Structure formats: structure tokens, C-alpha cells
């Protein structure tokens, strides 16, 4: 059984016991524990079930590479699926539950898949479930989906907060082991700004566990001393619980800080995503121990040798009483020594190397432990827990030589440098045959903005397995990045590290080397996804020779650990199957993040109210408190209608239309874009921007203008007012202000940079109100201050003045067909002005109206709306707007485009009005049906509806649409689609439905 030891435990605080639950059972741990350590201390080796076969899974590792110990963590709004027990810090009140089983962790009916595993080899689903066709969707897929997935789907809404943080420095060092600390120190000594991050809560990495001494100090003490020195440097920022998660182009890196995962509810942000911009990066990310591939290597109790050591030394947890160590290298002997020292039993060390190891082996032998050389494990015995191992000759096919009882197998297949961050942005790898590992190729680094490498790798991650060269390498890389980032290198001694001599490992990719199919089909490569040696061999046999093909076919390395434990072993099996050297088979691409990071951290503060900025006019709050039914419009929110009492939206719209036509309505038009264009060449410039002539507009007058893209399509419209000889004010659509402003700047800066024109966007300086309806003038006259008579302010004129003491500019323009003034006042006075209008307008029947009323008013008059009549495929000529296209001008944006054969074409659909024969409202987006069908069997069309409304004014449906030869077909009845029923008949009419003579505005 696994249990807590009385000795050891450098990271735990025995004075602070913590209580937590696992699958409802109350357990206890200590402050400083990882959850995996706490669970083991409570004899909970079984922590999960595998993905495909639902086999029992125990913890395998002690860090972020853990594939098995994934749990449902927390409850309700604090729930998180797939939390790794090895990287979850135990806290008081923690609630954990195991995943992917039914009905329970101990008894999972899904484990039947394991019994059927011979029928479910790699890629079985590509070959099965083909017939009958409908069964995939209705039978097979639901079953597969049901058994897939790991953790539960979260349900309650996340209540935690998250944030981003931009950090600028010259050097970022990833990894707080001795290499990272040394690299940071060497880099900092050059005077540049350094950021050092460590993913765990602790500094020092493996060195304190492995008994390294540095400059005569125990590693632990050297780490504390170095850390204190770094903390005292002004130019160094150090950060634990912060993982270097990804390296991106131009010196951008992500660091994922888990601030409050271990202190939920303390009010701090849960995670902070650091967006680091630096010149140079050192990845001192260490290495990950490789499993060995032997039959039964997935049974709970089989663990990485280094993890066994970590649990004993760091957490005072014994994974089991009797541990068999199996290895191909010297390092695993440290585990045996450590267990021995903790008073635990090591009945046997199985070393696949015929010659065995060096000093560490001798030390082990000296303490009386038996070492079996040239041996391997034929098979592990046990179900939900290891009960023993069968020993065989490594060179053979698996004949059992002896059986040894044990409850833990500590395995070590050598070490793989963590090269992920090096590779994220294009760094290449070389195969180091002596050490059987891929390590970074210093000649092919990721390239930065200047074309030079910007990432260096230090220590274990760079392929240095012994601590002395680790520190030397780290110091050298630290100095190099400091220099490259603009620092000055000082001479400094490199701390001298001491550890045991080691002899070379011997690569072992399969144990025993001639293992039978029966053994190979029980030798796991990917523990979570259930990929075995036999699966990779089958993939190779079936032609999946590229490592990417093999990976995708078998799902090797695609689990939540992203192949940290399985990739190299799988690659070696593939290369053997293909009879090709490992480097020729290649590696898969490493993709960020290094380990999974929370989605919430990506969103940062942008959630809820801060999801996106809402632009608000000066009158926004008034609308909100007066029943506004909001509509998002280009970043703004505008009232769609103002609801009174128990009105429906449709009723409110109808009321607003009738009131505006009969009495008086106000529209908050502040969102309309307003751009000042000024200069000696401003007229010439606007003549290029607009299809109409703007240079000949007289000061004091307004003109409706159209803007097209250079590709000919109508892109914006609005009223242009000429202010003085050199100044124009251009109105744009609500969504268009920033876009049109940028469009003007673009042409001025990049094409006509010698033209003397200045442009300023003053949209937000002004609040604008449309005062609309038969009583509009009466109201303004009542308020007083300026002459708004037909004589002094005729249609399409503007004037500056004051109304009720507020400075304003009044435009006599109409988008409704009514007598109408648009009045602009300084934004800070917008609300006051609006409230004054409301109050003074009461006697004239004033009501505010929203965007839908605006739409109906303009549609009744046949005015086009950008975004309705236009959709990016419509040119002004389609909309009967040829009158707004100057024939006098040689050039304007879009003119040449409109001369192309498909645009200068009488067959284009043209704008008309449409009325159903029965007075009903045509459906939005309906198409006009034509005879027959096209070569692809699609029904032919001859037009479409662009705007359609119920007109409260006319008491019937009205619509505008584009119809083939429409203007020549007045009175003709054509058919429009209606969803789910028969087509509707509609008559082609003039698009001006109301007051065709324009009498109402002409007063």
C-alpha cells in the first residue's frame, strides 16, 4: 500500500494538516502536497480510467507530463475537469472526483472494451461501422461518443476573475531549476531586464531531490541563496506557479500564472496570462523521464523511477512497500538508494544493460540490493494494483526466469529533454544517439524579427544530464542571451556542482527486445489514449509511415499530455518497424501550450460587462431608463424602440411611426459619423471620395453623397455640408465613421500625399438629434434662439446658432419625408438638450423613436439604407442612384470598376418597390422566382427583397427589392418565395410609397 512516511518531505508542512475529499471520501494531506501526493498518502493509487479501454490507471509521474491522474476538481462554479493531480496543490476543502468511469472508479463497465481490445486495434473505426449508412449517426457514433471524453462538462457559470499582463524585458528564462536560476543570474549580471518563471510552487527542480551539491552547499541551500540574490536585483522579476507556455514570433512568449488555484475564493484573480515581449529567451525546462515498454506497464503501481523518488523526498509519501526498479540507465539507481534510505524494500533492480551501471550501481549493490543485469520485465502481474513482476532476459522473447512480488515498479527508460518551447516557433532538433534523445540543434534556432536566433536552451533541456555541465551550460547561455540582448558580460566563476558519476544508458525501446505479439499488445506507449506497441507496428504495416500519419492513425501522443511520455518511445517503435533510423522518421510538431492552460485566462478581463466595449451616446442612460429595447449597431447600442407599459416591440414601433408622421418624433442621431475635411485641396479630394460632385457645393448647403469602394460597390452614404471655402463636414453611417475616416486618411497618405487636406473625426464631440414631424418647427420656434423658418433655413441648408441657449448647428435634412431638422450640440450638453426637447415638445406630442421606426419612415419614402439595399455586391446604378453619380468628373473611387463588363450591364437587378396583392408583408430576404432551373438544378431567380416592413402609415406591407429589368416592369406581378408555403404574388411599383411629391417636407 502507499502511505505517508515519518521522515522526508522537504516540501510539506506537517504542522498544517488539510482535509479534502476524493470521490466523497474524506482524506487528509499536508500543506505543500500535490493532490497526487495526498492521494497516495491515503493509499489511493487508483486515480482514473484510460480513454479507450477504460483500464484502471494509477499515477505515473509527478509533474505536468502525467497522463493518468486526471480528476474532476471542485464543484459548481469552481469546477474544473481534467485537473492533473500531480500539478494540483492540495488545499483545505478541496473536492476531487475521478473521471471516465461508470458506475464507479473501482467497477467500470466500460472496462469491457479492454476485454475486446483485440477487436479494437489502432484505426479500427476506419474499417468498421460502415454499413448500414444511417447507423453511424444513430447507433455507432453515439456509443463511441458516450464512452469518449474524460472529465465532466462544466455546468455552472465561472465566478472567478482573470487578467492579462504585458511584460517587457530583454531576457526571459523559463524554468526555475538550477539551470534556470544560473542562466537568470548570468543574464542579469549583464545588466539587462530578466524575467524568470517556474511552473511549480517550488524552486530548484530535480537537483535537491537528487542530492546534488553546488559549491559545497546542498542544492537546496544553493537554490535558496541564488533565489535571494536574484530577488535582490532590481532588474530581475521572478515568478513561481508561472509556466512558460508558448514561444511565438518576434520574441513574444506566454506565461501562465496560476495565482489562486490553491487558494480559491480569496478574491485574487484565478489566473493571469503574461504576454511577454523580450529579445532573448532561455528555456531551462529540464527533461522528462521515459517509461519502458513492457507488458503490463500500465498497471497502477508502475511509475516513473524519478516520480517514486519525488514522492518520497518531496512529500514523504511511499508509493508502496516493495519496489522493483527497472532501468536502462544509472539514474534510476538513485530511486533505489532513496527508497532504501526511507526504510522501504527494494527486492530487485532489473537493469537491461548486460554490463550494468557505474558508481550508483555499486553503491546500491553495496547496500545489499540484488541487481539483475541484462534482464527485463516480461510482464507485470496485477489488476488494479501491481502484485509482482516476471523477469526475463532482455535479449530474449520473454521466457520467464523468475517472479518477484512487489507493489511498485519504478521504471526508467532514460530522459528526454523538454524541447517544446524551443520548437514552438520553428527551432529544429538533432538526434543524439549516445544519449538516445532529441535535443535542440543550436544551428537551427527559432528566428526573431532580425533574422537571428532568439531562443537558447540550457542545462538538462539542452542534453546535459550531469549537474556540473548543466551549470556551466546555463551560465554560458545566460551570458550569451545577455550579450545578445544588449547587456555587458562580466567575468564570473561558474558554481561547481557535484553528483555521482554515471555510465551511458543503453537504449531500450521494447522489453524484452523480442517480445511476442501477446506481450507487445500489452505494452503501453500512450497510457491515456491506450496506444500499445502493437498499434504502432500495425500502423507501419498499413503504410502510415510518416510519423504524423502514425500518430493520427493510432492517436499516439494526442492525449492531454500531448505525448510527453509516449512520443519518443512510439517514434522508436515506428522507426524499427520501418527499418529506418530514428532521425529519418522525424518528430511531430510541438504546438503550444506546453501543458493545457485555462480558456478563461485567454479571455482575461474580457468577459461579462467587459466582453466588448459598448459605445454610448450622451443620451444613452436616458434611453435606458425610458424603455429602450437595445440593438447593437457598429459598436454602439441604439434604441430599436422605446417600450411603454405592456406594449410589444411591434406595437411600440407602430406607435412611434404614426406619432412621428402626425406629430413629432426625436431620434438620437449622435452615432452618425461626422468628419471635418479641410484644406485647399479638400474639394478635389471629396470629388474623388464621393460619386457626386462635392467641390461645387455652396457654403451653407448640404448634399446627399455616395461613397464607393475602388471595386465599385456602394460602401457608405451620408449628407455632406459645406462649412466654408476650405471646409466640409461629411456625415457617415453609424457603423461607418471610423472606417470612412480611416479610408480618407489612407488615400491622403498613400496616394495623394501631396494634396493639402486635413481630416478630423469629430463624431464624439457632438450629440445630434433628429427633430422630425409636422410640429418640428413649432417646437424649435418655441425654444427660440435661431431662425428655423423655411426662408432662412430651407431644405438642404444648415445654419449655426443657438437653441434655448445651447450652441448648435442645425441641418434641414430629412430621412423620413417629414419636416425635419438634425441638430448638433456639444456632446456634454447632449443630454440636457434632449431633455429640454422632450419637455418642451410634450405639448406637440413629442415622443422619442428608435431605429426600427427610422427604417420604416425611410422605407415608406423609398430611401435606401446601407446594409439593407446594399450588401457589398450592389452598385449605385442598381439602386436608381445614377443621379448621384457625377458625369462631369473624370475620376472617382469606383468609377473604373463600374465600367467593367459585369457592372456596366443592363441585366443587373434594379431597385423597385413591391406590394403584395393581399397586403401582407413579404418575408425578409425573399427571392423572386423565375422560370425553370439552372445547370445545377437550382431554381432560377429574377430578384430579391432588400427591405420589407408593415407600414403603419399605409396599413399594409411595403417592400423594396432588386428585380431584373424592374423599373421597366411597373405593375407586373411576380412571385416571391415564402418559407414553408406557396410563393407570394407581389406587384412591381415605385419605391416611393408615401408622399411621392414630397409635400410634407416642403413646408
Amino acid at each position, binding site marked *: 500500500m502507499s502511505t505517508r512516511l515519518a521522515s522526508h518531505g522537504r516540501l510539506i508542512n506537517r504542522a498544517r494538516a488539510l482535509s479534502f475529499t476524493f470521490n466523497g471520501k474524506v482524506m487528509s494531506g499536508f500543506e505543500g502536497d500535490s493532490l497526487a501526493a495526498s492521494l497516495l498518502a491515503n493509499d489511493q493509487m487508483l486515480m482514473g480510467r484510460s480513454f479507450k479501454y477504460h483500464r484502471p490507471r494509477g499515477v505515473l509521474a509527478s509533474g505536468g507530463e502525467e497522463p493518468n491522474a486526471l480528476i474532476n476538481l471542485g464543484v459548481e462554479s469552481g469546477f474544473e475537469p481534467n485537473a492533473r493531480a500531480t500539478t494540483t496543490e492540495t488545499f483545505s476543502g478541496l473536492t476531487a472526483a475521478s473521471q471516465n468511469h461508470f458506475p464507479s472508479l473501482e467497477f467500470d463497465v466500460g472496462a469491457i472494451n479492454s476485454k475486446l481490445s483485440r477487436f479494437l486495434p489502432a484505426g479500427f473505426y476506419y474499417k468498421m461501422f460502415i454499413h448500414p449508412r444511417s447507423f453511424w449517426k444513430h447507433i455507432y457514433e453515439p456509443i463511441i461518443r458516450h464512452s469518449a471524453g474524460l472529465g465532466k462538462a462544466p455546468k455552472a457559470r465561472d465566478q472567478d476573475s482573470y487578467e492579462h499582463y504585458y511584460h517587457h524585458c530583454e531576457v526571459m528564462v523559463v524554468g526555475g531549476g538550477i539551470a534556470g536560476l544560473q542562466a537568470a543570474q548570468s543574464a542579469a549580471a549583464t545588466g539587462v*531586464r530578466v524575467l524568470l518563471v517556474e511552473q511549480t510552487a517550488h524552486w530548484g527542480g530535480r537537483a535537491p531531490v537528487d542530492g546534488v551539491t553546488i559549491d559545497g552547499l546542498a542544492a537546496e541551500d544553493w537554490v535558496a541563496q541564488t533565489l535571494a540574490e536574484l530577488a535582490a536585483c532590481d532588474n530581475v522579476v521572478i515568478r513561481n506557479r508561472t509556466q512558460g507556455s508558448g514561444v511565438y514570433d518576434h520574441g513574444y512568449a506566454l506565461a501562465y500564472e496560476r495565482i489562486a488555484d490553491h487558494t480559491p475564493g480569496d478574491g485574487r484573480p484565478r489566473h493571469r496570462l503574461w504576454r511577454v515581449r523580450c529579445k532573448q529567451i532561455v528555456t531551462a525546462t529540464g527533461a522528462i523521464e521515459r517509461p519502458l515498454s513492457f507488458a503490463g506497464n500500465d498497471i497502477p503501481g508502475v511509475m516513473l523511477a524519478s516520480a517514486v523518488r519525488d514522492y518520497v523526498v518531496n512529500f514523504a509519501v511511499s508509493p508502496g512497500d516493495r519496489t522493483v526498479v527497472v532501468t536502462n540507465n544509472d539514474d534510476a539507481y538513485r530511486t533505489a538508494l532513496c527508497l532504501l534510505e526511507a526504510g522501504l524494500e527494494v527486492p530487485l533492480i532489473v537493469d537491461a544493460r548486460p554490463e550494468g551501471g557505474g558508481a550508483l550501481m555499486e553503491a546500491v549493490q553495496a547496500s545489499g540490493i540484488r541487481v539483475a543485469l541484462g534482464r527485463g520485465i516480461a510482464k507485470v502481474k496485477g489488476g488494479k494494483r501491481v502484485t509482482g513482476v516476471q523477469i526475463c532476459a532482455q535479449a530474449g522473447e520473454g521466457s520467464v526466469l523468475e517472479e518477484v512480488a512487489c507493489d511498485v515498479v519504478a521504471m526508467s527508460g532514460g530522459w528526454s529533454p523538454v524541447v517544446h518551447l524551443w520548437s514552438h516557433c520553428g527551432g529544429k532538433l538533432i538526434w543524439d544517439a549516445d544519449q538516445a534523445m532529441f535535443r535542440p540543434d543550436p544551428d537551427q534556432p527559432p528566428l526573431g524579427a532580425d533574422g537571428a536566433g532568439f531562443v537558447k536552451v540550457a542545462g538538462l533541456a539542452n542534453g546535459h544530464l550531469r549537474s556540473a555541465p548543466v551549470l556551466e551550460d546555463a551560465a554560458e547561455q545566460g551570458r550569451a542571451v545577455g550579450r545578445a540582448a544588449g547587456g555587458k558580460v562580466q567575468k564570473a566563476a561558474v558554481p561547481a556542482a557535484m553528483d555521482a558519476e554515471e555510465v551511458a544508458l543503453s537504449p531500450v525501446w521494447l522489453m524484452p527486445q523480442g517480445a511476442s505479439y501477446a506481450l507487445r499488445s500489452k505494452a503501453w506507449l500512450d497510457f491515456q489514449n491506450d496506444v500499445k506497441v502493437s498499434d504502432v507496428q500495425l500502423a507501419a504495416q498499413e503504410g502510415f509511415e510518416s510519423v504524423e500519419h502514425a500518430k493520427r492513425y493510432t492517436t499516439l501522443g494526442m492525449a492531454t499530455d500531448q505525448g510527453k511520455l509516449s512520443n519518443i518511445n512510439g517514434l522508436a517503435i515506428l522507426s524499427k518497424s520501418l527499418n529506418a533510423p530514428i532521425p529519418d522518421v522525424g518528430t511531430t510538431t510541438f504546438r503550444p501550450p506546453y501543458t493545457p492552460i485555462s480558456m478563461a485566462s485567454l479571455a482575461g478581463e474580457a468577459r461579462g460587462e467587459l466582453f466588448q466595449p459598448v459605445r454610448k451616446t450622451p443620451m444613452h442612460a436616458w434611453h435606458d431608463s425610458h424603455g429602450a429595447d437595445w440593438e447593437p449597431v457598429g459598436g454602439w447600442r441604439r434604441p430599436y424602440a422605446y417600450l411603454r407599459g405592456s406594449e410589444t416591440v411591434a406595437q411600440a414601433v407602430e406607435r412611434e411611426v404614426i406619432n412621428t408622421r402626425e406629430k413629432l418624433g426625436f431620434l438620437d442621431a449622435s452615432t452618425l459619423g461626422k468628419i471635418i475635411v479641410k484644406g485647399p485641396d479638400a474639394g478635389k479630394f471629396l470629388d474623388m471620395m464621393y460619386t457626386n460632385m462635392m467641390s461645387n457645393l455652396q457654403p451653407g448647403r448640404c448634399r446627399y453623397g455616395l461613397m464607393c469602394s475602388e471595386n465599385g460597390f456602394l460602401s457608405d452614404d451620408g449628407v455632406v455640408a459645406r462649412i466654408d471655402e476650405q471646409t466640409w463636414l461629411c456625415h457617415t453611417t453609424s457603423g461607418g465613421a471610423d472606417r470612412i475616416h480611416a479610408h480618407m486618411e489612407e488615400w491622403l497618405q498613400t496616394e495623394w500625399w501631396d494634396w493639402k487636406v486635413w481630416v478630423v473625426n*469629430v463624431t464624439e464631440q457632438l450629440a445630434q438629434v433628429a427633430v422630425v414631424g409636422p410640429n418640428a418647427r413649432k417646437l424649435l420656434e418655441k425654444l427660440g434662439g435661431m431662425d428655423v423658418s423655411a426662408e432662412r433655413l430651407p431644405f438642404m441648408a444648415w445654419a449655426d446658432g443657438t437653441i434655448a441657449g445651447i450652441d448648435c448647428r442645425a441641418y434641414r435634412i430629412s430621412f423620413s419625408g417629414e419636416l425635419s431638422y438634425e441638430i448638433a450640440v*456639444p456632446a456634454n450638453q447632449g443630454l440636457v438638450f434632449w431633455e429640454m426637447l422632450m419637455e418642451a415638445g410634450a405639448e406637440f406630442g413629442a415622443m422619442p423613436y428608435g431605429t426600427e421606426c427610422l427604417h420604416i419612415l425611410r422605407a415608406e419614402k423609398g430611401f435606401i439604407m446601407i446594409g439593407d439595399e446594399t450588401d457589398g455586391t450592389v452598385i449605385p446604378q442598381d439602386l436608381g442612384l445614377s443621379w448621384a453619380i457625377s458625369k462631369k468628373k473624370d475620376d472617382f473611387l469606383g468609377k473604373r470598376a463600374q465600367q467593367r463588363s459585369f457592372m456596366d450591364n443592363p441585366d443587373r437587378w434594379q431597385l423597385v418597390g413591391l406590394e403584395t396583392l393581399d397586403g401582407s408583408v413579404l418575408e425578409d430576404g425573399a427571392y423572386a422566382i423565375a422560370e425553370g432551373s439552372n445547370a445545377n438544378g437550382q431554381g432560377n431567380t429574377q430578384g430579391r427583397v432588400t427591405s420589407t416592413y408593415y407600414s403603419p402609415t399605409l396599413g399594409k406591407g411595403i417592400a423594396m427589392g432588386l428585380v431584373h429589368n424592374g423599373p421597366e416592369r411597373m405593375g407586373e406581378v411576380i412571385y416571391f418565395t415564402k418559407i414553408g408555403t406557396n410563393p407570394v404574388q407581389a406587384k412591381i411599383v415605385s419605391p416611393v410609397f408615401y408622399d411621392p411629391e414630397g409635400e410634407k417636407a416642403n413646408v
Partner: protein
Amino acid sequence: MSEREFQGYVTIRQHSDHSMFTLRASLASSKVKAALKTCLNVAVPKRGTYAQTGETLLAWMSPDELLIMVPKDAGGAAFAALEQALDGLHYLLADVSDARVRFTIEGGSAREVVAKLAPMDASAAQFGVGSFARSRFAQVAGAIFVEQEDRLSLICFRSVQDYVFALLCGAAKPGSEVRAQS
């Protein structure tokens, strides 16, 4: 316009004590420089900075754009004087007082709060007192300048003032200090 304040681990405060004008003109023009000097008694700032005399500020927005800030009560007169002094030159002067909003971020960790929102390097070494920059603050554009080592001003558009205020308050929330955690 409401004057808001939030006391977090730095203090966020909204101000409306200045009129603001946008001037588009060639800042290299000696006539433009002279007009500004005459009217406002402030020199044209170098790029990346602002210049100040008393309560009047000129900030470098681009090679041909200045942001002019003058005390509110002097705004009308200054605008008229500038119009007169620039007359005959190629320029565009626009009142943007109502279009913009200024917040101050005060406290020893003011730069840290900025760093939660803007991708620019706002460290003291790179962005000292007297610096002025335009950048992106979360999802909106803004301008920022350093008045004192522990007091930064942020200017944004009026329509997004609620958003920016909420952003700043969130970033300044006690408990979310970056440097305090280790």
C-alpha cells in the same frame, strides 16, 4: 460628465478640468511653431513626449497632429486665439473637449495597472516622466502620458468611458497586485 473615482491598489479618477483641441498641421513648420508659442507659450513637443507650461499641455500625436489641453475656463479664448494666429496657414483646429475623457492612475503601481491593459512598454526606463504615447487599452484606442513617477493620465473617447473606467477599476482591484505576489 460624471467625475468618478475608484480606490484600488492605485487610485483611478476621472477629470474634466481641461479643454482639448486637435490641431492638424505640419509640426515642422516654423509658422505653426511660432503660432503655438505665441498663443499658448508652449513649445512643440518632440515625438513620444508632451510639453507643458503651467496647466497648458501640447502632446505629440503624430508628425502633423497635436493634442492641445488648456484649462477649461481658458478654452474658448485659446481656441479663438489659435484660429487667429494660424489664419492663412494650412491647418485644421477642432474642439474635441467633449469627445475625450481623461482618467488619472495614481499610486506606486500605476504602471503595473497600465501593463495589464496596454501592449506598450510603460516601464519607467522606457516611458519616463514627460512621455506621451498612443496605444491600445484592452479593446479601445487611447493615449497615455506620465505626469509624475506615480501619476499617469489616460485619455480615451467619451463613448467608451464607462468601459475604460471599468477596465481600470478591474485592473486596480485589491488582491490583483502583480508584484505583491510571489
